């Protein structure tokens, strides 16, 4: 099984990377870009068969290690 975890800064938290990307894109002539935010994706390969269990375990992984819940929020998607 595979899990895809997306982690991004919570709304309201300063995202200097995103800001710099947006500016640089518009300097390059991509003027349609009004804002950018940068986050992480973590792809996990998992043993086991049950998507429900996997989702619960990966959520636990996010809380314990993958996301910094003080400033980040995350979402989990299980693919098989």
């Amino acid at each position, binding site marked *: 099984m595979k899990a895809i975890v997306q982690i991004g*800064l*919570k709304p*309201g*938290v*300063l*995202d*200097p990377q995103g800001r*710099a990307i947006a*500016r640089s894109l518009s300097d390059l002539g991509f003027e349609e870009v009004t804002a950018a935010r940068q986050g992480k994706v973590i792809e996990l390969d998992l043993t086991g068969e049950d998507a429900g269990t996997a989702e619960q375990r990966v959520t636990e992984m996010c809380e314990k290690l993958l996301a*910094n819940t*003080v*400033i980040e929020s995350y979402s989990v998607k299980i693919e098989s």
Partner: protein
Amino acid sequence: MAKAIEITPEIVAEHGLTPEEYQIILDRLGRAPNMNELGIFSVMWSEHCSYKSSRRHLGKFLTKGPRVIQGPGENAGVIDIDDGDAIIFKMESHNHPSYIEPYQGAATGVGGIMRDVFTMGARPIALMNALRFGEPTHSKTKTLVSGVIAGIGGYGNCVGVPTVGGETNFHKGYNGNILVNAMCVGLARADKVFYSAAKGVGNPIFYVGSKTGRDGIHGATMASAEFDDDSEEKRPTVQVGDPFTEKLLIEACMELMATDAIIAIQDMGAAGLTSSSVEMADKGGVGIELNLDDVPQREEGMTAYEMMLSESQERMLMVIQPGKEQLAFDIFHKWELDVAQIGVTTDTGRLVLNHKGDVVCDIPISPLADDAPNYDRPHVPTDKRDEVKAETIALTDLNAALKTMIGSPDLASRRWIWEQYDRHVMADTVDSSQSGGDAAIVRIHGKNKAVAITTDVTPRYCYADPHEGGKQCVAETWRNLTCVGADPIAITDCLNFGNPERPEIMGQFVGCVEGMNEACRALDYPVVSGNVSLYNETNGQAIPPTPAVGGVGLIPDLQHFATLAGAKEGDALILIGETTGWIGSSIYLREVGGSEDGAPPPVDLALEKLNGDYVRQLIRARRVHAAHDCSDGGLLIAATEMAMSSGIGLQIDRPAGNMALSGWYFGEDQARYLLAVDENSVNPILSTADGKGIKASRIGTFKGGRMTSNDGLDLALSDIRAIYEAWFPALMES
């Protein structure tokens, strides 16, 4: 609308104000404040901004001296280092934020202290940090260490200011409250120092830097409140640092400062726009009117309350010379920073805020500062402890003892830390953590002189005896600067303590401050800036008293300095100072004896001065190849550090006598130095010392690759080094 909310006792309490404090506000205003006004009073009267528990004691410090250009009271202290050059420096804590979010907490701590320094017109040239973590085995320690170090490095490295030294301790007393104290040293021209007092009427007020977001709203009051187990849940948004913007801000400010456009300038630190505008107005005796609609905002729908209390980083406030507005705009636009004129100075003495067509705050400024609470909190002195006699502490196996000591948490190598810091950027680092030396040496750009910088405190001494501990931390920085051949000039401090409302904690505070002050006066070594961090406790457990001291000295001529690393094959090892074998509160007693008992070593300040002045004189006369003071771990640890740094073994010849071995090798008597000198220098050095009434003796010879002694010590330097280097990586990889 903020005005509509009725201020209840609960709201007052949530703002950290006591009913008595609230009554003063009512009396001064002659009416109830609105929410914005209450918020402003609450941050201005928080411990963090008002120093309400500490102010009267800090007033005792020696703060003046022939080289002091600006003492405490401005963003940072300023000292004269000749030739029209000035050094501007300060140390500050970021303890609570670093515990909650170690990377960002530590990073923004570094950013904040740099702004305090460049706001006064100095280009930052060096960073230091003083860190205290919980026990190495505590479940949180590893994560906190790696986050804090990465955060400090991440910020300083990116801005391009070298992090040249620091200190790191581990103790269970910090399990629930780590300490992250950062120090910044900057270089300015003495006649181009910028201050924060706003002047004139109708002068434009400029906002520069990052946009304001809802970051750390109420952080300043949070930093003054004790933790409980839930605070990790309740915490407000953590501030995120943006070192890239900080770097641009430094360059832009330096460029604008080279013109005559700035009347006053102040960084937005804790309590952001509120404290910066109030302090500027109060110092200059003027009023300020701001239009909050003009504040660059990161988010939509921000309220006046949020804007005034936001702690968004990388922002500055300045009063600009009328007519120079365009110049300022051009420079900040060049550096792609947000900039706006958000208000003017007035002659009303009031802080007036306009937002969306309403006046949302209109209060007199002077009560915010003048009427800030100033408490004389009850304090009880710490009980004196008995001495521990070295004779009662056995030392049978010197080899085993040295191995245990050199691989112990407080003495093992910090390479794992400082290899993550860029120590060389700016091309003027002469010596740094890399040699393990007592003080870092940073050259004044383009000149043949340098500043020496160190941070020190020995919390276990301060805990055992706040007064002696207070003397000791100041004396140790003075000694460390002396060891590299510098003239110690002045200090900054960061006073980290528990809850001041407890008389025994307040007793620690008062004891340390008075001890520090005694040392400052005896050594002509004034305090020019500092910071207080109280309420460092969790569930009633306070940290050990930790008054971190940052010392700065001057090496007038880079032809004459010493480091830890210069001993040569055949050099003699000379011990300056008296050894009584003081083992109480020592690392040996703790690590080998398993006890934290005993009175700490007494500090004889006259002796410190006598011995230190002599050591400096010898270094200046180029008699010394390497120098080190005896501090944590005592004589044998200092000698081993010299040997490791120089890469040469050492034969130690303990003079005959009946002092207990534990005391001679590991006792922590103060005012002592070890010097590596040429064989031919030994006699002249010893006889001059004798003439001055200074105890000095030859106790060994640098040679070969082993550490040996007439008491059975015999270890390969490489084996000792392996133990010394292994501890930290093992901790972090466990």
